[in-house]
């Protein structure tokens, strides 16, 4: 490997949207065989940079050198021709086509082909799959694949096009730790063949774990760029956020004395989980973790009535409750912040205020089912102020907010009706580091006020920061309860991988 001659050099890239500088004099250098990580909070300009390099967005200033050519701006076709491939967060696959078709079709287009012969498709696909040594069913439809296999398919498609630099946008968001580890192995084998990988991520652990070099963006500027060995966790956090964040652990223990607010006994749902028993006390934040597909989300969705459990009992404040629908759960005092904020949590084009009251309509109507508009407005305004949502007006659509503020709106929807138990699934995915800590702080405050809080997450530092107790779910069963000194990063990871 010639580590000296870079594959790609971007110099002095600037881009303005309206009056705002998304990128300001940003430079980036990618060398063959390296894993380069672009780290930064949401809104730091990472996505814009990828879009410019892949030719989707035209920069205002700067040049890009790929191979021997220098471009003022690239077209998507030129980018692909130069071996630049981007794997977006949604993978951009065709759910209705087979794995082989998905892998091979782009290269057929690139070669200007008019006809498609199935044997040829399979040959192209098989060659790539063998090259990185993964196991994929060529004839399976992508819609039937797991998220990890879809990602592999997307990587294979990039390689089928002779990619020399693969950009991956937040590649581990939807993956479990085990799948992430498998991905890292593939990444390592790709490096050896001289392919460069550029990860775009805001997850500090993975940034430190796999990259050789790190470029940190903040507010559209490169803050620092250098060998990964030069960074440690606090340094990286400081570079990304511009401030120090203390890594606190929750220490208050008065919750131990209180009677449980939620008691779950022998909860089960055929095919998903069984014998789930636990309780939550007021003032406590309970963590639930497990791999994707372990049943952690299903347990939460059963409690919330999305997919009701078929065995077991649930008691709230000592009273048995029957949850057969979301409405039952809401009436019993549950609130649920779902994992997929955009599709499950928000009405993007509706106003912020309307999003906040969406979960409390039953409380906000008077005679003749008439909406009490003034009460509704007041409730929305108070909750939004409490949660410090930054917005121009509560009548603006939620779409106009940043990820962190959108998540606060989902939280506001439930806090508006003061639930007894609030369940949060991956509450800080896609939320910038600053907002993340504010949201976690808010959860701690609510639990001190007596709300029972359950956080489902595979973000280990987040669990450590906010939870008093963590349950580990494996194959639909609770296999461990970690608390006190037994609750460390190592114990959680050990239990997850066991």
């Amino acid at each position, binding site marked *: 490997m010639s580590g000296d001659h870079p594959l790609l050099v971007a110099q002095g890239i600037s881009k303005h949207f309206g009056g705002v500088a998304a990128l300001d004099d940003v430079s980036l250098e990618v060398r063959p065989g390296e894993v380069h990580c672009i780290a930064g909070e949401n809104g730091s300009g990472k996505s814009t940079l990828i879009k410019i390099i892949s030719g989707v967005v035209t920069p205002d200033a700067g040049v890009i050198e790929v191979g021997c050519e220098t471009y003022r701006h690239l077209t998507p076709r030129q980018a692909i021709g130069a071996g630049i491939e981007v794997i977006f967060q949604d993978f951009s696959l065709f759910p209705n086509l087979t794995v082989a078709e998905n892998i091979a079709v782009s290269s057929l287009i690139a070669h200007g082909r008019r006809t498609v012969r199935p044997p040829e498709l399979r040959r192209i696909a098989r060659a790539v799959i063998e090259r990185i040594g993964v196991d994929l069913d060529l004839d399976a439809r992508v819609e039937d694949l*797991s998220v990890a296999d879809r990602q592999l398919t997307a990587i294979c498609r990039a390689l089928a096009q002779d990619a020399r630099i693969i950009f991956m946008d937040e590649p581990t968001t939807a993956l479990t730790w085990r799948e992430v580890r498998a991905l890292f192995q593939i990444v390592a084998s790709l490096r050896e063949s001289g392919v460069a990988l550029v990860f775009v991520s805001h997850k500090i652990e993975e940034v430190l774990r796999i990259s050789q070099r790190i470029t940190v963006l903040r507010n559209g500027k490169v803050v620092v760029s250098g060998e990964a060995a030069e960074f440690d966790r606090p340094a990286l956090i400081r570079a990304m956020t511009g401030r120090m964040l203390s890594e606190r652990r929750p220490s208050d223990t008065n919750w131990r004395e209180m009677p449980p607010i939620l008691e779950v006994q022998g909860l089960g749902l055929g095919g998903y989980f069984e014998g789930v028993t636990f309780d939550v006390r007021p003032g406590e934040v309970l963590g639930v973790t497990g791999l994707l597909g372990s049943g952690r989300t299903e347990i939460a969705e059963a409690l919330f009535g999305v997919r009701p459990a078929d065995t077991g009992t649930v008691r709230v404040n000592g009273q048995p409750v029957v949850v057969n629908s979301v409405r039952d759960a809401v009436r019993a005092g549950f609130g649920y912040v779902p994992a997929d904020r955009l599709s499950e949590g928000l009405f993007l084009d509706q106003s912020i205020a309307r999003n906040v009251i969406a979960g409390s309509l039953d409380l906000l109507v008077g005679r003749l089912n008439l909406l009490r508009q003034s009460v509704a407005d007041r409730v929305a305004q108070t909750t939004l102020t409490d949660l410090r949502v930054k917005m121009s007006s509560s009548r603006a659509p939620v779409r106009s907010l940043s990820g962190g503020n959108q998540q606060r709106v989902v939280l506001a929807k439930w806090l508006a009706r003061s639930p007894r138990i609030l369940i949060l699934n991956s509450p800080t995915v896609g939320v910038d580091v600053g907002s993340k800590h504010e949201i976690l702080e808010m959860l701690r405050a609510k639990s001190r006020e007596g709300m029972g809080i359950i956080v489902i997450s595979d973000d280990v530092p987040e669990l450590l920061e906010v939870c008093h107790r963590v349950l580990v779910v494996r194959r639909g069963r609770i296999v461990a309860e970690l608390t006190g000194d037994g609750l460390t990063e190592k114990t959680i990871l050990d239990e997850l991988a066991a």
Partner: protein
Amino acid sequence: MSTVPSAARRLRISRLRGSNNEGVLVVAIAVLATVVGLVSPSFWSVATLLNVGTNSLENAVFAMAVLIVMVSGGIDVSFMAIGIFAGYSVIVLGNATGIAADSAWLGFMIAIAIGLALGLLNAFAIAVLRLPTLIATLGTQTIIRGVMLAFIGRKVIPDYPPGLESLSTTYLFTDYAAIATRLNVMIVPSIVICIVVSLMLRYTLVGRGIFAIGGDAESARRAGFPVTRLRVLIYLMAGALAATAGMMHVTQVRLANPYELVGGELDVIAAVVLGGASIFGGKGSVSGTVLGVVLIALINYSLILLGVPGAWQRAAVGALLLIGVSAQALSAAGRHRRGTIVQAEEAAA
């Protein structure tokens, strides 16, 4: 695990059903034929075959137009308007100018040219203005029909240019059993068209592109498919197919009536949906569609044979469509549920 044998059985069942419902349709056709045959023995005759063939030969071509659009994720309700516009215009034009007097070929070519032009109108509304397809084609349907009735003619025309006149009486088979039943030679081009569309969808990049757009248009763009150009092409093809089918219809009935066809869209849409095409795009096959067309032709013919009034045919097709889409919706819900279980099992393994 206890689920393994049942999973294997499910797989076998789904293979029997065919990827696009073909198995179910074959069974439905067989059951229908048996029942009607028991009630009315005259069903078992060559005449039935020829009747169903006569009815299917134009509807199959219409269905190809609808199928292509539906696979790409749209729904077209303007195809009948395009068909009758093209067919009727060719007759009017032929009678007025003597163009295409001796050659049915030329008549069809003119019809196709008209179909391409009208398809371009759809393409403009959908690919350029990005209107929702149902609403756009409802609009173009009205425009196309309005232009025909306002500017081309409103009379029913019995006189044809000689070329088309002779094509209309060129039969492949004639069955003289009781009353003469005939099958027009146009069944041959109809079959050829279906085969060509099938090959196009399966083995060309354009065809795969249509499936890709139906699966995920944004991904198709990122993968390098020229999405807008493909969309234009889709509606051009649909226009040409609809015009061909309309010309076939006008030729077969030997009476050019501008008030015909429009309003009968559902027979064809139902056939395509029964044939396994998904209105959300990305799914569908020519074989399923053709079976759907045959099933509906068979039902219509059987009802006539059994002496049921025509109004019931309309109700029957409506009911059939509802049964078809309900079954599809239910099996989709079932598949979704199975998918998550399988995933959970994999994770547990």
